[in-house]
């Protein structure tokens, strides 16, 4: 078993991390690559297929994406992903077709860096899908120029092992980042993010983590408003079944002079069984006085009155539960701008509900 040097869960950002699962995933014996269904959606634009972190050129269309050596950075997990990675760089005012990236893991560990660099006013969409089994570790550096816009959607549907993501984003003046994550596989996941919002910037980081069995999924995302007039929303939903653990840690930080910041967090957890756990940590760290920052967090079960109401209209209880749970999750996926992508993500969430309820 490879020895992995990981942070201690005594450190605040790692309190709920399932670091044991990481080591276990890294030690997974190679498995056969299941089928050839590459999980690409019917969209124009670049298609990148990475098998264990290596580009499968035969099944990929690079379009405006290039490959090159990238540094992983400082982060405890992301930092391991130094090496050859993919890079999307757009010039000012450019707009790219959606970039799709599919990551297939077949056991063991694999690490891959990426960068998305948009010059002023450039617009891009990136959709990533994680499948297979093993430890897939990614670091993605995002740099948005003035008024650049990036829509990013990531679905984590690995069947085994662990997926760890580290996003580091820097938003220029008036830039906009909308990142949505869906964890609906059966592997462990950790979504780690650090987003720095510039003047009048706009950041949405959120998603849904659906856990079952003994699975553990978590996010630990920090949005920092470095300049005035920024806006951020972090909307996360967690649904936990069986003995699983879903943890949502979202922080907003407002720097000393970042006045008129509007930061909002909504973290909600739904427990399907008494053996499951939901952990929430909506954190505010504020150093400016003229700001609007609020968060709401709730944990509970489905509304008994709504369940009965639906049953009294003839909908069987499991179906009523599914509909309510779906509505609960939908909030988080609604942020995905592209309808086709949104439908694909919703279908994954539905499949999870079908399996679990």
């Amino acid at each position, binding site marked *: 078993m490879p020895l992995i040097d990981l942070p201690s869960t*005594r450190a*605040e950002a790692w*309190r709920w991390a399932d670091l044991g699962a990481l080591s276990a995933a890294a030690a997974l014996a190679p498995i056969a690559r299941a089928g050839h269904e590459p999980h690409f959606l019917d969209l124009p634009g670049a298609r990148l297929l990475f098998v264990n972190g290596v580009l499968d050129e035969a099944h990929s269309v690079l379009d405006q994406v290039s490959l090159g050596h990238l540094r992983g950075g400082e982060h405890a997990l992301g930092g391991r992903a130094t090496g050859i990675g993919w890079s999307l760089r757009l010039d000012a005012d450019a707009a790219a077709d959606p970039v799709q990236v599919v990551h297939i893991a077949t056991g063991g560990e694999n690490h891959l860096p990426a960068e998305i660099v948009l010059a002023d006013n450039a617009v891009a969409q990136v959709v990533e899908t994680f499948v297979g089994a093993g430890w897939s570790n990614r670091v993605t550096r995002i740099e948005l120029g003035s008024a650049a816009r990036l829509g990013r959607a990531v679905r984590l549907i690995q069947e085994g092992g662990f997926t760890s993501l580290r996003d580091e984003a820097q938003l220029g003046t008036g830039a906009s980042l909308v990142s949505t994550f869906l964890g609906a596989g059966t592997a462990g996941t950790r979504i780690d993010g650090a987003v720095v919002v510039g003047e009048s910037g706009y950041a949405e980081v959120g998603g849904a983590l659906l856990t079952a069995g003994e699975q553990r999924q978590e996010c630990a995302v920090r949005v920092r408003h470095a300049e005035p007039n920024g806006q951020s929303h972090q909307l996360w939903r967690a649904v936990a079944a069986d003995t699983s653990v879903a943890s949502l840690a979202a922080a907003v930080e407002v720097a*000393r*002079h970042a*006045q008129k910041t509007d930061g909002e967090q909504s973290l909600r*957890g*739904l*427990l*399907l*069984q*008494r*053996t*499951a*756990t*939901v*952990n*929430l*940590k*909506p*954190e*505010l*760290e*504020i*150093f*400016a*006085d*003229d*700001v*609007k*920052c*609020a*968060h*709401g*967090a*709730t*944990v*509970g*079960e489905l509304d008994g009155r709504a369940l009965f109401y639906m049953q009294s209209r003839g909908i069987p209880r499991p179906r009523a539960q599914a509909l309510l749970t779906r509505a609960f999750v939908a909030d988080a996926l609604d942020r995905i701008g592209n309808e086709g992508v949104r439908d694909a993500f919703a279908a994954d969430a539905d499949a999870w509900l079908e399996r679990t309820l």
Partner: protein
Amino acid sequence: MATKNAEAYAAVSKKYEWGFATDIEQDFAPKGLSEDTVRYISAKKNEPEWMLDWRLKAFRLWLTMEAPDWSKLNIPPIDYQDAYYYAEPKAKATIASLDELDPEIRRTYEKLGIPIEEQKLLANVEGAEPPRRVAVDAVFDSVSVATTFRAELERAGVIFRSISEAIREYPDLVRKWLGKVVPQRDNYFATLNSAVFSDGTFVYIPEGVRCPMELSTYFRINAENTGQFERTLIVADKGSYVSYLEGCTAPMRDENQLHAAVVELVALDDAEIKYSTVQNWYPGDENGVGGIYNFVTKRALCQGRNSKVSWTQVETGSAITWKYPSCVLAGDNSVGEFYSVAVTNNRQQADTGTKMIHLGKNTKSTIVSKGISAGRSDNTYRGLVRVAPTAEGVRNFTQCDSLLLGDQCGAHTVPYIEVRNPSAQIEHEATTSKISEDQLFYAMSRGLDQEAAVALIVNGFAREVLQQLPMEFAVEAQKLLGISLEGSVG
């Protein structure tokens, strides 16, 4: 307007009025911390063997521990050898009434302005009876100097003693509960306290008794370089009720002084404890020189069914506050409440909040935290709500609001929510705001000066918590927040 606001905000922080030192003779333990210090304290207190063993066990444990570094505090290294762990006024250690008190100490209390009502009562002033009577235990540096109303309380069966006396007079009761809520190894400062606690208060309310008056302890650090390590233990037997108040002050000194108290509360079936604190230790000057390090462990065990513990705190003092009054809700249907106002100004740092640990069925908790930050201070709410798998039907509501006065301070909210039972309903809300110029202008256009207008708005912001305080303390707390009484009504 910004500068104008700043002026107004500066006015909120009144000068520290309790910063006098009392010039009395003191007996000190040798400076520094060793097993000998522990033995010295225990001997001074005429403690039984088991108590000394208990202390020594804690001390040896402490030597193996490290100071916590996880809170959002910037704590300069503390030299535990450069402090006195025991200081005793050379006046009689225990006295029957305030009349016998050393006149210097008595003047101290007069300057504190707090026990005036009690003094009148003690002097048997006809017709001077205040609306409520309060029994007072006063802890002066390391020693409890006066416990009032003892006889009347005893008629009701209430034991209200300094903890040193209680260890000698009610060893079985003390031994049964001491360290049961806050174990010796709980945390660095609690372990230190377990080894060197000098005095504090013990309260026992027997079954079915509603304590006939408020109980109160005033803590005062006076001597230089002295740490104060008081220990409070309150046991409310079945169906009993007690309201307990705690006030704290210290003189202005350039050095930092350490205050590491432990408070343990136990509520049995149907018992209720209301614990209120107005903490006004010396906060240091505007440059952050001096002030008290307030590292306190307060925890309540709601062991009985239908038991209830309510913590209310107004935290305005100390250079650094590290304090999380908590409730372990073990009994079914038990209730925990935490109401807090924490004000930080200048270079103060406060990291305070609560833990609500839901173990029993249908347990409920309410958390209302109001943080007010001014100057260059940092004010953090840190809280944990945990629901165990066995705890059916849990309800929690948490509201954390921060008010920032000026743009050089920080307000932080770090709530942890850990839920393992689906029938729980947990709701958490938080907001951050400043005093709007509209509010300020509106109040001032009605004739309030800036200071009064700010005080009015701050009072309104904190009202939900101040309302929880017993009357005597509410007045003091409002004063502390720089608020006129009229303002609090409007």
